[in-house]
């Protein structure tokens, strides 16, 4: 191999180490140069395996390049660049290094051609995200980071067990298509599923993302779950179970998003909904569907980041991302409002969502997955309601909360503007995106039927929202949190603790009462009074039997009492018993 492959993972992780040594404008230039140089190093690279190292008879592949890893790598570079601009003003301390380290780990997973290096980078991804969550620097952030570590720690163990078993079962360690026939395949599937925020395994996402720092949430929303989408698309395309998982993911988070007050959490739930579309696409697994998944992920990373950036800008200025604290900000932050609206128009014609989501929808229809098609259509209308309308409405319109704030800082505006522009460009020139897709499939998004259908769906969804608000039926903003599956390990574990404490303490006090207070005193009483009483009763029977006169008997009783009081009798008894024991021991 004559072509030199410089892994973006290496570039970003080295940058993460070096950035703390730079200061001021030089640091900013260096940080912005990293994604550009890194992207340049992989763009022209033909498909193939680069950076292959033999280690203990195993081929470790750090540069597995094909159309699927390339398109994810391109969007990851774009979003790294945008996020870095976004955090130039607000980034603190190790936040920059965490971001670079995290992105580097994501590139490592993308280009891993073997499961061992895949696993190592997968774990580094968790470490990087912890840095970003901890940058939230609040008690809640620390709690969320702790729960995040637990969840992803378990996920990592499952994945590792799966990799080892898969290795034993098949003898192969390549990152390639797998099946759910072996136990190893199942474990890998579930390990990936935790990062993909499958139902019941999802709560680390809605728990942790809204507690990270403002820039941290933007970056987190782009990588972890999309890395899992990439991995599932590579290893488990066409796995029918994913269609069911995806359908559930497309629906249930919408309910949370409708009633949730924290707008960053609303966006986190809407994110899970979009992952549902991608899971359905991977489950269908046709060339059109996998193209749809890659295109969806590409666009989703862009517009979701614009959402998180605009809500982050609001939070930076007002100190809150809660619907109850916000409203009327269109007067003070008009450009941020505009960018948020661009993100919310994503599924309209001329925008990125329109030209990407329909690929998966069409794949469902052509694959005769009619139920999935209906569910995704419902989810399209639903996510437009909860993210497209709710977020801009409560943040920038609705009742004026009276925040006298300035427009977002310039670096934030530039980042949001770049993201919004790209969303629009995708919608206007989808053919450039389609060219990057893993398979060459001809697809025309702008047909009369499609444009009209999508406009009808969204217009009537918006109309329904307007009428519900006017009628006072739309769920109002409410200062509250909503129980999710994390209840089990947040309250459940403490309930288990309390339950165990109740049982153990009960046993303890009961044992204390029975043994310490009653049994011990009973034994003491018996050894003091019981033995002599039995002895004297027994002896008196013998004495009476032998016809001993009463006066002699009384004399012996007195003698016995004295011996007992002196305590010499029990000792003598024990000595006799001990002697008997030894005699028995030697004779038998």
């Amino acid at each position: 191999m004559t072509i030199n492959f410089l892994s973006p993972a290496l570039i970003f992780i080295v940058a993460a180490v070096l950035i703390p040594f730079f200061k001021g404008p030089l640091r900013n230039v260096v940080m912005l140069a990293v994604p550009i140089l890194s992207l340049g190093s992989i763009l022209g690279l033909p498909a193939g395996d680069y950076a292959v190292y033999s280690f203990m008879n195993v081929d470790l592949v750090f540069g597995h390049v094909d159309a699927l890893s390339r398109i994810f790598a391109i969007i990851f570079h774009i979003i790294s660049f945008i996020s870095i601009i976004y955090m130039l003003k607000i980034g603190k301390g190790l936040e920059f290094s965490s971001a670079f380290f995290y992105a580097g780990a994501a590139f490592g997973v993308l280009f891993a051609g073997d499961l061992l290096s895949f696993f190592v980078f997968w774990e580094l991804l968790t470490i990087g995200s912890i840095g970003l969550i901890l940058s939230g620097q609040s008690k809640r952030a620390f709690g969320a980071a702790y729960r995040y570590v637990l969840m992803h720690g378990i996920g990592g163990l499952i994945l590792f067990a799966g990799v080892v078993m898969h290795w034993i079962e098949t003898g192969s360690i390549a990152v390639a298509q797998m099946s759910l026939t072996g136990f190893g395949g199942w474990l890998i599937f579930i390990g990936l599923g935790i990062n993909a925020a499958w139902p019941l395994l999802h709560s680390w996402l809605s728990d942790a993302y809204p507690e990270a720092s403002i820039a941290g949430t933007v970056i987190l929303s782009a990588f972890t779950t999309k890395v899992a989408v990439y991995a599932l698309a590579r290893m488990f395309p066409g796995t029918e179970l994913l269609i069911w998982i995806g359908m559930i993911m497309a629906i249930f988070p919408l309910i949370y998003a409708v009633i949730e007050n924290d707008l960053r959490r609303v966006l986190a739930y809407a994110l899970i909904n979009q992952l549902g579309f991608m899971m359905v696409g991977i489950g269908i697994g046709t060339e059109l569907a996998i193209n749809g998944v890659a295109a969806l992920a590409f666009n989703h990373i862009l517009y979701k980041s614009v959402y998180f950036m605009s809500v982050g800008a609001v939070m930076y200025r007002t100190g809150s991302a809660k619907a109850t604290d916000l409203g009327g900000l269109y007067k003070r932050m008009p450009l941020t409002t505009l960018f948020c609206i661009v993100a919310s128009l994503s599924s309209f014609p001329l925008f990125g969502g329109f030209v990407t989501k329909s690929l998966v929808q069409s794949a469902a229809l052509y694959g005769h997955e009619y139920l999935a098609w209906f569910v995704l259509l419902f989810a399209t209308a639903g996510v437009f309601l909860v993210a497209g309308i709710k977020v801009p409405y409560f943040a920038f319109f609705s009742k004026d909360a009276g925040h006298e704030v300035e427009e977002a800082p310039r670096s934030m505006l530039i980042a949001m503007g770049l993201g919004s522009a790209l969303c629009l460009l995708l919608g206007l020139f989808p053919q450039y995106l389609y060219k990057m897709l893993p398979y060459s499939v001809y697809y025309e998004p702008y047909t009369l039927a499609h444009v009209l259908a999508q406009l009808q769906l969204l217009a009537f969804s918006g109309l329904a929202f307007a009428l519900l608000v006017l009628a006072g039926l739309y769920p109002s903003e409410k200062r509250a949190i909503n129980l999710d599956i994390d209840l089990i390990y947040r309250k459940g574990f403490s309930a288990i603790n309390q339950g165990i404490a109740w049982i153990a303490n009960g046993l303890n006090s009961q044992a204390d009462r029975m043994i310490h207070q009653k049994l011990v005193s009973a034994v003491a009483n018996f050894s003091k009074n019981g033995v002599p009483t039995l002895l004297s009763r027994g002896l008196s029977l013998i004495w009476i039997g032998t016809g001993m006169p009463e006066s002699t008997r009384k004399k012996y009783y007195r003698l016995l009492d004295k011996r007992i009081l002196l305590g010499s009798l029990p000792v003598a008894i024990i000595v006799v018993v001990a002697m008997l024991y030894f005699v028995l021991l030697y004779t038998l």
Partner: protein
Amino acid sequence: MDKQGFWDDKRHIHWLVISLIIVSAILFLLDFVLHPHHHSDWENWPGFYAVFGFVATVVLALVARYVFRPLLSRKEDYYDN
């Protein structure tokens, strides 16, 4: 605080709602004029997408409000104690 914005004028909100209704009605009627050709049968029912979008949104909002909010909603400091 008292900076007067465009949407503080109630008439502007009325115009917005009315124009939304008009646009929706036109989009709905276009189904009968243009006869867009879809892939599946149900998509070819006139007004399918319009009705679906409206009903889906109403159902989602009301189910979330009346069924799930009472079940799931707790005070903000629920986990802090």
